């Protein structure tokens, strides 16, 4: 009688060890990431680095949903952009300090995530993508008309203010360390979520939803929590970005932004820990490089999508992880 129980315990123990091994094997890559991030502003212009970090956080948040729950949201620009508007508004009109302005953005994004997620998880797969896209487009039209967004002009001249009322953020170099801290906070939070028991259930839902349900997990419940988390973290990225660049605009809520974040995750590697960061670096570099050629950026982005789907579905980090035979 004790045999099955014993086997079950052993099984779960083995599972836990594997998860711990995975976390342990990440130590070196994480160290490399931190070293690169700390060293970079001494070599590269901090403004472009801050852009990369904001997008990388956004991409990591998106990967939490697409890579680990298997939900393709085509409307994540909604959370990114809405948080950007609210943070900018809070900093400029309400005069809130940096950290509270960003927090306002995060709370807004989480609330919107709850509403959109609650509606969208009623449909699965491809319909989920279309529903989120449509709701984001609705929000875009709302932003186009709402008085506080400034329409086509956006909210310009957002003050960076002082961190905790003490440290002035006017210098790009100082600002960089704050953005880096926010990015790492978000990154480790996502890392923790993915490797928690909650994260294991998310993966189970991704792999086989009916089976997860039959095991007693309320799949919709888990999906909704993951959706809200992803939206809030996207908001963290969006809010930070609008204050760093002192601008919140319609571009951030446009479907093009949703497309860009999808491309970053796809290019870097779906469901990998470091993929979204690498994807964000590549996409931001490509954009800055091709910006001088005008409209060709869109063509390049589209081409990258086609190539990734046809020949490169694992992405850069996914391929690397296969070659090195270790999770990355």
């Amino acid at each position: 009688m004790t045999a099955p129980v014993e086997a079950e315990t052993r099984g779960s123990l083995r599972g836990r060890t594997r998860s711990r091994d995975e976390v342990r094997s990440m130590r070196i890559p994480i160290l490399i990431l931190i070293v690169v991030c700390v060293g970079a502003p001494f070599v590269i212009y901090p403004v472009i680095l801050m852009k990369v970090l904001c997008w990388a956080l956004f991409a990591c948040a998106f990967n939490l949903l697409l890579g680990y729950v298997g939900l393709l949201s085509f409307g994540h620009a909604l959370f990114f952009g809405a948080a950007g508007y609210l943070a900018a508004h809070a900093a400029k009109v309400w005069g809130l300090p940096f950290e509270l302005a960003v927090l306002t953005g995060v709370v807004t994004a989480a609330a919107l995530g709850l509403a959109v997620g609650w509606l969208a998880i009623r449909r699965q797969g491809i319909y989920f993508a279309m529903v989120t896209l449509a709701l984001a487009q609705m929000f875009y039209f709302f932003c186009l008309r709402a008085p506080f967004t400034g329409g086509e002009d956006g909210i310009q001249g957002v003050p960076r203010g002082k961190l905790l009322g003490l440290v002035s953020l006017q210098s790009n170099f100082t600002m960089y360390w704050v953005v880096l801290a926010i990015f790492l906070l978000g990154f480790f939070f996502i890392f923790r979520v993915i490797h928690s028991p909650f994260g294991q259930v998310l993966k189970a839902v991704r792999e086989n939803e009916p089976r997860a349900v039959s095991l007693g997990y309320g799949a919709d419940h888990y999906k909704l929590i993951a959706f809200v988390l992803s939206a809030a973290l996207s908001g963290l990225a969006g809010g930070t970005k609008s204050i760093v660049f002192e601008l919140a605009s319609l571009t951030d809520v446009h479907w093009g932004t949703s497309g860009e974040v999808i491309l970053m995750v796809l290019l870097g590697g779906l469901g990998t820990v470091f993929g979204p960061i690498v994807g964000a670096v590549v996409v931001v570099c490509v954009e800055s490089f091709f910006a001088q050629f005008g409209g060709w950026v869109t063509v390049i982005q589209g081409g990258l999508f086609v190539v990734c789907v046809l020949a490169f579905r694992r992405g850069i980090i996914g391929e690397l992880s296969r070659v090195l035979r270790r999770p990355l």
Partner: protein
Amino acid sequence: MTTVFGVPIQALFSQLLVGLINGSFYALLSLGLAIIFGLLNIVNFAHGALYMLGALTAWLLLEHFGIGYWPALILSPLVVGLFGAVIERTMLKRIRGLDPIYGLLLTFGLALVIQGVARNYFGVSGEPYEMPPQLSGGKNLGFMFLPNYRGWVVLVSVVICGLTWFVIERTRVGSYLRASTENPLLVQAFGINVPRLITLTYGLGVALAALAGVMAAPIYRVSPLMGADLIIVVFAVVVIGGMGSIFGSILTGFALGVIEGLTKVYYPEASNTVVFVIMALVLLVKPAGLFGRTA
């Protein structure tokens, strides 16, 4: 002057007509999406870009070869449909059997490429396209003024939608198509060339989009981004109607166009968003869509 709920009847009917026109385009596009999804299990994100390509081809034919509206009405869907068949043969074919998400991403990429290339060569502002002289002018129906061209667009859309429905539901080729939607392997075992059927289906869906594009050219300007926002509205239409039924997509397309037109009269601020609001409501009440089978 007669009024309905405080709105002059003239204004009401002319907005209803505008709504019907938009509804025609929604119907043609969502019909194409539904046919393609049925057989390929792909949501064709490039549908808006191919609609634009239809209009652009008509404009190019006129500009460079002096070929007018009437031949373009046939030629442009043919050319764009052929282009679609090439896309299917070279790309979509390779991702068959994968998660449909990849199909969406691939066609999204294609849409970016097509729209980006078009924007580089034609600019963002777009070009006007002359209305065919036979259809200029209009008739006074007493209660409203009916521009001939707009009446023509609605008429053609209804006829084409009806024809497509007839071909799929009532003919032998249509029965092959429906059977392949259910079980492609078994149909192939009966000696029907399913891969060719799939290519033809994608070409047909794309040709419908191009036809809508040619008809839209004289009404809106021919511009590289004319399909970019439209496709999102059509996605909402498809979510509302559900892609399971041909008749359902046609009806939902026309109905939502009319509702949008009515919103323009009574509450213009919401005319851009009304379709999305209806989508949200339908998701609350009937998540599978009005004509959808189980999700």
